[in-house]
């Protein structure tokens, strides 16, 4: 099965995507991640205003079976959280790159190591087999 990996996004090895626009960015989890997790039933969201280092745990997504930590792909400060996920966490399954976004951040200078869509698709392929 092929998973969607929109070309305009960047990706982390822990299966988050990030859309960087100027000094702001939107973060969510990838199509592969939502499929591997199964039905998302709960999202643990951070407080607006909290700062995280690159790869810092900023929350968690949970299915019936397991909790999975969320890592911020780049350092930054949370400026918005997707409050729709509190009552409809399944948006992450239905639309991981759109309505299922998780946080918006103000990006701190010095963006870390991210993957292109092509590199991420190859990475997912390598861990599936």
């Amino acid at each position, binding site marked *: 099965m092929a998973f969607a990996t929109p070309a305009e996004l960047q990706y982390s090895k822990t299966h988050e995507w990030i859309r960087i626009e100027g000094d702001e960015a939107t973060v969510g989890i990838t199509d592969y991640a939502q499929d591997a997790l199964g039905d998302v039933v709960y999202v643990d969201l951070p407080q607006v205003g909290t700062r995280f280092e690159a790869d810092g745990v900023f929350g968690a997504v949970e299915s*019936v079976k397991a909790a999975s930590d969320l890592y911020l792909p780049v350092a930054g400060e949370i400026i918005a959280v997707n409050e729709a996920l509190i009552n409809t966490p399944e948006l992450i399954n239905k639309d991981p790159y759109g309505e299922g976004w998780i946080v918006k951040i103000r990006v701190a200078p010095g963006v870390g190591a991210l993957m292109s869509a092509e590199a991420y698709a190859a990475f997912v392929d390598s861990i599936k087999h």
Partner: protein
Amino acid sequence: MSDRGELRRTPLYERHLALGARMVEFGGWEMPVQYSGIIDEHRAVREAAGLFDISHMGEVEVRGPDALPFLQRLVTYDVAAIPPGQSNYALMCLPNGGIIDDTFIYNLGDSFLIVINAANTTKDVAWMHECAKGFDVVVTDVSERTGMLALQGPAAEALLTRVADADLAALPFHGVARGVVTGIPAIVARTGYTGEDGFELFVAAEDAARLWDELLDAGRDAGLKPCGLGARDSLRFEACLALYGHEITEETNPYEARLGWVVKLDKGDFIGREALQRIKQEGVQRRLTGFEMVGRGIARGDYEIRDLDGAPIGRVTSGMPSPTLGKNLGMGYVPVALSTEGSEFEIVVRDRPVRARAVKMPFYRPRYKK
């Protein structure tokens, strides 16, 4: 645990792949965790029926003139109270009362069939051979040549009626009999691990795939779905059925695990009796306790439990959002004083204490055949 290449596969492995199951490692086996989704499969079992491949479970045959006295020494339950054609839950304990494994014992008349946990099979079989010394008994590990399926849910009886000998679907709760299902010789028992009515079927390993196909075919119209280990876990969790390695281990005893009903101190001597008698007399320090999350957060196995002053008091054994009840529930060991309904404590969820309240167990009242 082990390399994925060393994982064992059941006779249904190819079927799982063909059905698009997500495969995971469990107890040294490569098993399906879900097909259509855990919540969907969970609902199918509560409302219609589900079919589980549980061929990873260990099966041990015990036969010979001393089969009964041997089992009486091996387990805590009174095996003499299981007549031919019946079965019961039983525990194997260490001399100190710690639980080696939980088992199901089926009395087949000419022999006993003991079902044990997949991950414990090697340990259990070695222990049983050790304990069999001095008894005129033959203990045989038949796991390899046995396929095991569970057909569970309110629609299971009607489905079995259509594809099996008439007397099989009419078995009483915990009843067991040999018969024919979809033309395949099988041992059928009215047992399970979901909190619903249902059956467990034992067949020759080479017949397992055909039985699986026939049952799925016959049950499609009734809403029967293939179910993975994910739903098996969420279903047993709601019914508060213990899972070895979580609620029970060699470091827990039956009384603190609320399994005192499986310990028959007056049946004669058995391994662990002295220790268990003492534990019962002195009373337990901690008790397995069901709880509901009051604050936002989901408890998971091994999370720390603290009292309201912040002192560590125990660990969660299992926790998840309950698909049937729509609440975030858990089980864990807490001091006896905090084990009563309404007691409050905190579960540490990713470094944050979240309030929880002790509730009645089981969370979901089983709907067994009476």
